């Protein structure tokens, strides 16, 4: 086989890219965000005289909701869509959970939590199915869905209230100086849900659909089904976000503006976390780290004695600057 019948110039094989290049391309952004987070944490550490478990727990538990929403948003964005209903989904899950969990024992509360997450998965899957079957762009369907879900939340709980079991709170977000539970939950979701999914054929199909729908179809991927499954997974994460909110605040809060703000912040975390809005690339770890960065910035500004309104401006500027720098670093890879 090695000798071709005619004397023709042999085309040289492409040189494989080096390990360093490969690492930079595939993990570079996550490493960058992790470094940024490290700097921010160190800064915060130097601001507070006694930086201990209490502060860490405050940061982790306070960010968990946003981190989970960022995960939900990332799954959808990776599959080539965008979900403007994750925040509303979280609010709805929060309201259902707070209403049902009020003055219940731990056992029923856990069951309720599981049921609420299941409901969120079904609803999100339904939203995804509508987007796939109707062919209406994701952004329109999920925006409309966010109004429906916000309305449902108000029907479930017409004013702030409800409650949950203190032991359940302890279990999910930990006591005031226990940073471990929240951290472990986040890590467990990343390691036990996301990693196996990403490595599965379904996970690869999700990236494929986000990268190039036509080529994915030619490769035998069932495009519609894959997109719906991405929505179901996103529903799982936003349902979890609602449960965590319930545990963290101990009540339900049906205000629609909370959901809207949370949705937009989740998109910011996705962008800052290195998931391309065009779909098909990125991972969930980046957005989770980015979520921490985003929630540390207001605290830092407060520590500096700034007006909280300026903190929002700073947050916006940081997103733009980081994404711009990231874009510049990645340009050689984009040019064909």
């Amino acid at each position, binding site marked *: *086989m090695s000798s071709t019948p005619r004397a023709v110039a042999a*085309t040289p094989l492409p040189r*494989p890219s080096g390990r360093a290049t490969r690492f930079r391309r595939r993990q570079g952004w996550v490493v960058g965000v992790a470094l940024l987070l490290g700097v921010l944490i160190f800064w915060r550490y130097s601001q507070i005289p006694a930086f201990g478990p209490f502060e860490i727990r405050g940061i982790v538990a306070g960010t968990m909701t946003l981190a989970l929403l960022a995960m939900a948003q990332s799954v959808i964005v990776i599959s080539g869509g965008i979900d403007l209903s994750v925040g509303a989904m979280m609010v709805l899950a929060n309201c259902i959970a707070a209403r049902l969990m009020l003055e219940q024992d731990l056992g029923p509360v856990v069951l309720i939590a599981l049921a609420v997450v299941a409901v969120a998965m079904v609803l999100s899957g339904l939203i995804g199915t509508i987007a796939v079957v109707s062919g209406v762009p994701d952004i329109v369907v999920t925006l409309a869905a966010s109004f429906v879900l916000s309305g449902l939340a108000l029907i479930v709980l017409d004013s702030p209230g409800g409650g949950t079991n203190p032991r359940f709170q302890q279990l999910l977000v930990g006591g005031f100086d226990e940073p471990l539970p929240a951290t472990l939950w986040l890590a467990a979701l990343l390691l036990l849900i996301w990693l196996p999914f990403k490595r599965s054929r379904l996970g690869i199909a999700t990236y494929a659909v986000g990268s190039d729908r036509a080529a994915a179809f030619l490769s035998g*991927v069932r495009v519609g089904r894959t997109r719906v499954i991405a929505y179901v997974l996103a529903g799982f994460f936003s349902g979890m976000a609602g449960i965590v909110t319930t545990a963290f605040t101990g009540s339900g809060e049906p205000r629609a503006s909370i959901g809207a703000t949370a949705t937009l912040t989740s998109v910011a975390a996705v962008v800052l976390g290195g998931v391309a809005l065009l779909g098909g690339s990125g991972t969930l770890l980046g957005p989770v780290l980015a979520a921490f960065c985003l929630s540390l910035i207001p605290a830092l500004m407060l520590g500096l004695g700034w007006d909280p309104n300026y903190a929002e401006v700073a947050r916006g500027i940081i997103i733009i600057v980081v994404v711009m720098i990231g874009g510049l670093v990645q340009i050689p890879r984009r040019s064909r």
Partner: protein
Amino acid sequence: MAQPLLQATAVAKAFGPVVALRAVDLSVAPGEVHALLGANGAGKSTLVKILTGVLRNDAGTVAVNGAEVELNSPTEARDKGLAPVYQDPAMIRDLTVEQNLRLTGADPARVRHELAGMDLDGLDLDEQVRDIPLPFLRMLDLARALAFDPQLLVLDEITAALPPDLSERVFAIMTRWKRRNRSVLFISHRLAEVREHCDMCTVLRDGRDVASFHPGREGGESQIVAAMLAEAGAQVRDVARERAARAEAEGERTPRLVVRDLLIDRQDAGVSFEVAAGEVLGLAALEGQGQDRLFEILSGNVRAAGGEILVDGRPLRARHPYDAIRRGVVLVPANRLLALLPQRPIRENIAIPLFNRIGRWGPINVGRERRQVRDAVERLSIDTRAAAQARRLSGGNQQKLTIGRWLAAGFRTLLLFDPTRGIDVGTKHQIYDLVRELADGGAAILMFTSELREIGLVCDRAAVLHNGAIVAEMPPTASESDLLTAAHGLEVTAV
């Protein structure tokens, strides 16, 4: 005769009003390398997509080993033993090769084995697809198809982007497949390859199969070319002869657009040609010979790797279509909806390029704009009943509009890329008349066409592009078969 491995009967497919396949029969015997041939737009790619489950046929049947099959998806086609390698590699750029293999359910070990068989085991499957050069992607795609051990391997123009040594490896695979009593459906524009490696060929024309024979026999090549073309050419030649005579009488004309050694890609030889004022230069080429890129460069959309463009004797270095337009060089692209604002009215569509001329700053002179637009609409006889939204116009009227908007703005050099694609015959002739009228009015026109008869109908001269270089210049009286022969990169024997 033995039972055919693949038997397609009366397969038809239409995309809206455009009929791609009228009724095609195709029969591939076991152990046969079968070539599928046809001019651009004859329906080859559509047929391949139907056979591999990408498109559903509107009518007709496909049978594998005598049993009728339904091919609803690429996976189903693969399960039935039909594995394709498409013109564009069906690999996802953001994933690694290995991930792409898992996506289709191909066994990486088998793919590696097939790659080793092609002497390509040096390829790293952990590399991202975006980092692998196109020829090797095709080979990977081929290896992936082979790993499914298909009964029929479908190769859609696989050799078009391959260097000779890799092409040889593809031919070796084809021979091996034949020896195993399996079959290959081979699509290529290179007739030499077809003659050398194929046992049978089926020629498509206008969505029908017009001939099936052994291409390697004596005179096979001319038989292929004859089958690919429609017969009626006499009338066309009369028109062309008349025009050639008139051009002769006028004598030398001043060149408007001069292109010297323009490097379309990174090849060695560049493209050189001239278009004079009042002249239509026809460009003939098979698909993918660099014509798309040439037009993009000339219109200022893409910068050339090297070479020179002169407009009226002065070099044009366009960084942006704006620069080219200001020098009077304008493009009418093949994709009309790309050029137009589909949801805006005719008036605005025509007026957009006008803005460059009607006052750059301040409010637009509405009266003047309206006058110029009206003139253009009348001159083109655009049917204005659907004037509110350009996308509602018929294809022909849209095409008139894309030309018309430049007409109102004023231009000196017009680049027409396949202006009559997907337009009905009547409107085609209106467009031919318009092109001639514009040329007689002093415009220099470069027109690429995928319909060779348009060269005779409209053009003053023809240039043939092959592999990113002009390989021949011909008078408009040149026969279609001569043009086609040259477009295949072959020597034209009798001129």
